């Protein structure tokens, strides 16, 4: 599969759009899923996924062919989604770190259970609750959780995608898991 992808990419670099169509077919579900889990809106997710592929096409010459294509593509997708999340809530976000506190953000100040009223949780389907829990994660945790548990990627690959040290990714996975646990443990 990697070989086919690399061949198609060479054709795309030469300007062949049909070859790019094959790449879109191969990765559309994965990319759309990342976008959907990150943005939580079908229209926004499709927009973001389309933008991801458009960006990939326009910047294909910057892709290093010695590295995994999916890593590069998912990086475009996650960066785009994180951008969109931040644009959506420009004024106030739980993710905003409090100055001078390493890694401590507004999220940590909320007691567990405060995020969702009890009756609301009960009224939702299990699936919806899971999605909600993911959505409530600050974007940087959301990205690692989506990549780890929805896309089921190894930690090292997540580190490559997000261009973060492995240790940071591990920390974020740990915190993301703890945050999710607080939402989902009563399910």
């Amino acid at each position, binding site marked *: 599969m990697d070989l086919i992808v690399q061949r198609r990419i060479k054709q795309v670099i030469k300007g062949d759009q049909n070859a790019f169509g094959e790449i879109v077919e191969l990765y559309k579900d994965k990319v759309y899923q990342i976008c959907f889990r990150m943005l939580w809106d079908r229209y926004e997710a499709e927009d973001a996924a389309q933008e991801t592929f458009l960006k990939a096409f326009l910047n294909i010459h910057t892709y290093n062919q010695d590295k995994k294509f999916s890593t590069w593509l998912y990086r475009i997708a996650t960066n785009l989604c994180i951008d969109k999340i931040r644009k959506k809530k420009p004024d106030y976000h739980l993710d905003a770190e409090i100055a001078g506190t390493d890694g401590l953000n507004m999220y940590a100040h909320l007691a567990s259970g405060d995020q969702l009223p009890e009756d609301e949780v009960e009224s939702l389907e299990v699936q919806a609750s899971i999605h909600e829990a993911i959505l409530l994660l600050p974007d940087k945790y959301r990205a690692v959780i989506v990549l780890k548990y929805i896309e089921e990627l190894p930690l090292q690959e997540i580190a490559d995608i997000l261009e973060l040290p492995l240790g940071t990714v591990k920390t974020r*996975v740990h915190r993301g898991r*703890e945050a999710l646990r607080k939402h989902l443990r009563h399910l």
Partner: protein
Amino acid sequence: MTSCSKQIVHSMHEYLDGDIQEEKKQELKFHIETCADCKQHFTELEKTIALVQSASHIEAPAGFTSRVMALLPREGKKVGIERWFRHHPFLTAAALFLILMSGGFASLFTQEDEHFAFTKNSELKVENETVIVPAGAIIEEDIVVKNGDIRIEGSVDGNVTVINGERYMASAGNVTGEIEEIDQLFGRIWYEMKSLFR
């Protein structure tokens, strides 16, 4: 839970990431079995992961690829042509053959069509684009006449080839080799091709 060290929770996560040292793993196992709070914490984490992983996998909406393709800038004509060639190797080969061949024909016709030419031999006579092998003469070589006729009154010790012309044999005329008249298009092409490989 709060009474237990943060190290235990950290070990839980290391365990969940699958990169825990054996020693710590045993420690964690032992601790979980003795501490109800930590056991619950750990169970909740595992349940959380199971729940998140159970989130149904979704697919891109129908028509996604064509919508992406519509967004791309128009590709150059050159690429379209190259791709066509790549996808139709047989037609490409055939087209290439025809182009080269027609180029070859063109050059054949333009260079040699109107020219009267024949094998140079001092014994041959020429009258109005007719090569004459005079009576009594013996020519010991092959004769080729292009765009002209040949009249053989003497004898030729070899082959006679007439291209785009006619051959007249006098009753006394004599040719020891083959006599060939080529005036049809494909016969001529065949002759030219044969001569290429000689």
